């Protein structure tokens, strides 16, 4: 290496270092966001599964058919809040507030159609759609939004 080559390398490093840091921070934040979204989706899945397990026992004794309990949507909302609380530090709102604003619908009779998604359900179904605000400080450092909203969806039925 000559004296001139060494100056070129230092200059290149100084120029490229910010770009490398931007890419590094972006990748890390994107990974963290994906992990939080995955955990929120799992919380929604478990909530709808629990709600589907909440069956109307009187109707079962009367007709032998599984039909969702009248409070299935409330059960799903309650368990969604409970499950989300494990991810609370990464969320930009409280788990209870997120669950309260979630669009949760139960379809106790079949066949039924979901007016929001247009899906047809042939079994008693609980559907959950929620917007989960996630803190993204890494994006904020890069002059991007400090909060990123992730939309999750979950649907369960007895099969």
């Amino acid at each position, binding site marked *: 290496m000559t004296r001139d080559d060494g100056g070129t390398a230092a200059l290149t490093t100084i120029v490229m270092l910010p770009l490398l840091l931007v890419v590094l921070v972006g990748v890390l934040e994107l990974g963290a966001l994906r992990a939080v979204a995955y955990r929120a989706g799992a919380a929604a*899945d478990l909530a*709808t*599964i*629990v709600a*589907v*397990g909440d*069956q109307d026992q009187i109707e*079962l*004794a*009367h*007709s*032998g*058919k*599984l039909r969702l309990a009248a409070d299935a949507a409330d059960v799903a909302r309650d368990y969604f809040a409970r499950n989300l609380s494990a991810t609370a530090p990464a969320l930009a709102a409280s788990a209870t507030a997120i669950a309260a604003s979630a669009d949760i619908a139960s379809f106790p009779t079949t066949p039924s159609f979901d007016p929001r998604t247009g899906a047809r*359900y042939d079994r008693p*179904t609980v559907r959950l759609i929620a917007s989960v605000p996630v803190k993204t400080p890494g994006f904020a450092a890069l002059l991007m939004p400090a909060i990123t909203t992730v939309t999750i969806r*979950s*649907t*369960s*039925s*007895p*099969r």
Partner: protein
Amino acid sequence: MKKRTALLLSLILVLSSISANAREPLEDEWLIPAPPVPDPVAFVVPSGLYYVTDTYVADVVATSDATTIYSTTTVHESTGTYARVIDSVDTGASSAFDGMAFNGRGALTNGQALAGTYYENFVLTAGGYVPVSIVFFQDDSETKRRQAVSSLGAAAKPTASPAAVVTTTSPVPVVTTTRPRDAIAPPSIMPQASIQPAPRTVRTGISLSPDGPTLASAEVLRGRLVQFWPRVFIDNVDVPIRSWRLLSAQPDHISASTGSTQPLAAQWIRMPVPGVSWSLRFEVYSEVSPTERLEAEISVMLRSPALVD
């Protein structure tokens, strides 16, 4: 020497012989049969007993022209009691149960006792069937000749009147015709066929609650403990179960394979092949006919909560 040796060998052979271990074909026939095990629940059921589905209301005497009919009205309801026929009597015949029926036994206009049937009523207690009362179902008629051509106008319409209330013990008052008659003639008695209990219709089923409807099939969630109640209906009236036994055994966990008043609690853990349903089959004995074997069955479709794509 040879004789001694042969004798010694024979002696050794005889002494060292053992009985063969072959099976004796007639061995089983010599076994003394075990004494029969008595029924753990010694329940004496009077012969001819049946579950009451039509209850006595009142004695009725109806008059049409010259014929007077003595009958009994009933109402189709079950009071949870049982009954049996203890005597059927013809007109004028005496019975050992005369004077014992709470509604008494009426008489024709000539004083002869009415034909009919005596029933003895029972209630089922923990100690067995206890007789509580005797009732007489009158079933008779008589015809009288007209004394003269009536000048009173149109013929009288048939009339009927309940003659006694359920709790009365007095003889049934008789309503006779008010039309004039040509001559008094001995009544011609037309004994009716004695009252026979109607054929029973027995129906069995399984319900998911003690008083719920019986179901041919039921959807069951995996892992959920579900109670199955064997039921017996006689003439569409729910009768108590004496015992049940599970004939099929698909559930992973069951509370018991036999029972009486308690239901079967069953739980499935393993899922069947998609599209396949299981069935629970019971052998049932009712309190009304403890010796009659009945079967009840329900189809079970096992389901599990799952995510939908």
